[in-house]
């Protein structure tokens, strides 16, 4: 039986030196909408949650996914959250989500207005599944998904590092890779 997944989220974390103040992402995301900067994705609007501490921050709302400058859990990063896709083989779904998240993170990193003070860590990334029907936060899900996640990462050029499970059993299923010995650049992932 193959493992199927959908509604995957991928988060690339900002480096400690990065300026994570949220105000400056608002005009950038509006511009992305105006210029249709993410092909094959219908960008709709910008949602402002600057007032929610450790929340989704600023969200670029799209039809197929949300792109957020998210600080859930206290660490800021670019969170790509796929919406309403069909369940498909986990490996394919994970690889696709990483690619799309990397594209957005790389584009932010190259934004002239942000470039000087924004960079993403490559040794750490997080995945989650926002679908408790097919991927409840359980040991069985972990046993099934973790090896696939690891193998996707290796194929993409990640080496080493620890994979840990999200702490609260009520949270959506999430795995975090940290401390990878080797990792690809964002540009090579898109």
């Amino acid at each position, binding site marked *: 039986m193959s493992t199927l997944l959908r509604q995957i989220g991928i988060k690339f974390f900002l480096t400690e030196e990065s300026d994570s103040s949220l105000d400056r992402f608002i005009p950038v995301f*509006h511009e992305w909408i*105006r210029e249709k900067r993410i092909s094959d994705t219908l960008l709709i609007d910008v*949602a402002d949650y600057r007032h929610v501490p*450790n929340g989704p921050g600023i969200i670029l709302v799209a039809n197929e996914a949300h792109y957020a400058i998210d600080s859930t859990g206290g660490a800021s990063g670019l969170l790509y959250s796929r919406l309403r896709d069909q369940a498909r083989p986990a490996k394919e779904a994970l690889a696709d989500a990483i690619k799309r998240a990397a594209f957005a993170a790389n584009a932010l990193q190259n934004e002239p207005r942000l470039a000087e003070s924004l960079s993403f860590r490559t040794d750490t990334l997080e995945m989650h599944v926002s679908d408790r029907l097919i991927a409840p936060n359980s040991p069985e899900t972990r046993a099934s998904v973790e090896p696939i996640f690891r193998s996707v990462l290796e194929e993409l050029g990640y080496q080493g590092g620890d994979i840990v499970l999200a702490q609260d059993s009520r949270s*959506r299923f999430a795995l975090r890779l940290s401390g990878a010995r080797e990792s690809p650049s964002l540009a090579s992932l898109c």
Partner: protein
Amino acid sequence: MSDVETKLNWKERLGPRISAEMGEEIDVFETNMILRKAGKIAPKIFAEARLRRGMYGQRYDNGSRHDGSATQRLDFPCGDLTKGPETVWDAPGMCRIKIPMGVVSNEQLDLLSDLAEEYSDAILHVTTRQDIQLHFVHIDNSPDLMRRLAAVGITTREACGNSVRNITACQYAGACAESAFDVTPYARAATYFLLGHKDIQDFGRKFKISFSGCKTNPCGLAMFHDVGCIAVTKEIDGVAKRGFEFYVGGGLGAVPFQAQLFDEFVPEEELLPLCQAVCRVFSRLGERKNRARARLKFVVKKLGIDEFKAIVLQERATIPEDSRWTTYLAELSVSDDKPLRKGEPLDDSIALPEGFSDWREHNLWQQPQENYVTATIRLPLGDISAEQARSLTTIARKYTGDTIRLTVEQNMVVRFLSESDLPKFYLELAAANLASPGASTIADIVSCPGTDTCKLGVSASRGLAGELENKFAREPLVDPEAQKLHIKTSGCFNSCSQHHVADLGFLGVSRMVEGRRVAHFQLVLGGEWGNNGGAYGLAIGAFPSKRIPQVVDRVLGYWAKEREEGETLQSFVKRVGRAVIKKELNSLRKVPSYEENPDFYTDWGDSREFTVGDLGTGECAGEVVSIVEFGLQDAERRLFDAQVELEGERSGQASMSAYKSMLTAAKALIMVFNIDIEEDADRVLSDFRKHFHDTGRFHDPFAGAKFARYLLNRYDNPPSLEDSAVTAREAIDEAQLFIEAAQACYQRMQGTI
């Protein structure tokens, strides 16, 4: 996880956890979705069905959005498929989830957090009606979402549309020394008695009920509800009997009405039948064609309270006995909180955590139950993340059990907290970023969704509220009297933030300046939050959105300087008068040129150049509300201002406002032809003449050009500040007739009469 397991769906997974009745209702809705996709249900019919299931439209769901330079089409993959008139199927929408009396269990809040993550944007938004809203929800997800809610006993049924909306009640009910008794079981009984009741299925508009435990506090807000019930006891034959002071016909919106006393004592066993009788009368006599006049308040106003009461009592006498009217009275304790821990006093000799004293000052409510307090969790703009909500249920499970309630100030409370646990409780809240001090102070601002997600939003009410909250955090107010004030911001005059009863209320409007649109907020000053929302504020004038923080400073400064000993802002506004305050604020009305300061031409939290081009047709009341109806409602609001001014013996001002209300109505009608003009009398008159007077379009079938001439005559003989009360009265009467004629004209053009 596996392909076998994924064949399972929520319906099968939850199975018997969903009651047969709720399951069937959701199945019916899902079938309607299929039929709509197949083109077998008309968009308008499906829209009403969807609204009655709590699935609302959201901004940009007509498939277009102004990107700051031009309006762009949003090409959703569904093509032409719609979920209502001009509402694209794939466009994100809002889901409103009814939480009766705001009472939510830990299990329910955990589930709501899951839904926010899976179907929305990981945020739960608390509304001023103690609902939870999820935004950016796809309609295709709604059956699963509803099933999962049903499995924990929550329904979205009649959360929107022309129905009885979520019934609200004091968050302190059952934990308040000032209440006559706990209103929770009564509000609960009314909720489930009326939910889906056949007598409420044919309303012309929405209907709101609230319960309050006392007359003085602002938790239940009985004074602006269609039906407001205030708990009272009365000694009858030497026995204290429970009952309700029963108010009807209150409402906010463009034309706010204070509720009127229907009966000073309705015995508890008469509560449900009387509510039912009022609903039946509303269903029968409520306006259908003119949506702007379709709330109960207009029925009460038209008939007068005495006649209305007579009709309701007559109706009451005809309703067949229903055992549900009274069965719940035998089990009133069913909704009582069951505290987890014994109430113990706080040992004040221990070292208290940093920040605790500030938090304690405004966020705790002393309960009558010894050594118990209720703690308010202040939520910025009513938002809480899914993670935070889970942290809150963890904390509640540890200290209090199932005692969380949502408040009409968009916060949450945790009740029956032992005082001895307060320091630990506070530290755990703080770790989840849920320990903001200043609950219910001036810094705790209530805001409607405004331009963030509402199709009717004109200005960024949430952006403004966020800016003001930041300002108060940066520069805390030291004046304890100022700290007690309330600020509420609405994106338009529909007043979803309840700005009429705020000390400083704001509603979004726009103004043309040198050919460009500029976001503004109208200031409404001196409303009363206490006494169940006891009095409405006075409209002072519109100010550029970007100057509102200065406006707040100026108002507070002026009041601090000029107030008499112990004088509230409300009394101060009454004493000093609108004209003087307006003058004091006058310099803040100016908008710098675009070249001088382009920032004024954007709104808070939005880098796009400001526009009203995204205004859509709203679904507030079930059916579509066009921008023209919007304008006509604005005219009504202005006429209301004129009446207030006349009552306040400002006849010249009243005369001018009445004239302005006619201009606003005329301008709204002109928008039928997609002509968006500045509020300039010459231009309005010239277009009105051309499109409505000279064509005869405005003419009344019986009175001909009579009403149109009211406007033309006033234009030729403009009002002045010297006008007498008699002239002002005449101007108001004429304006009233002119606006009625404008409404009728619009309806004729729509083919509805």
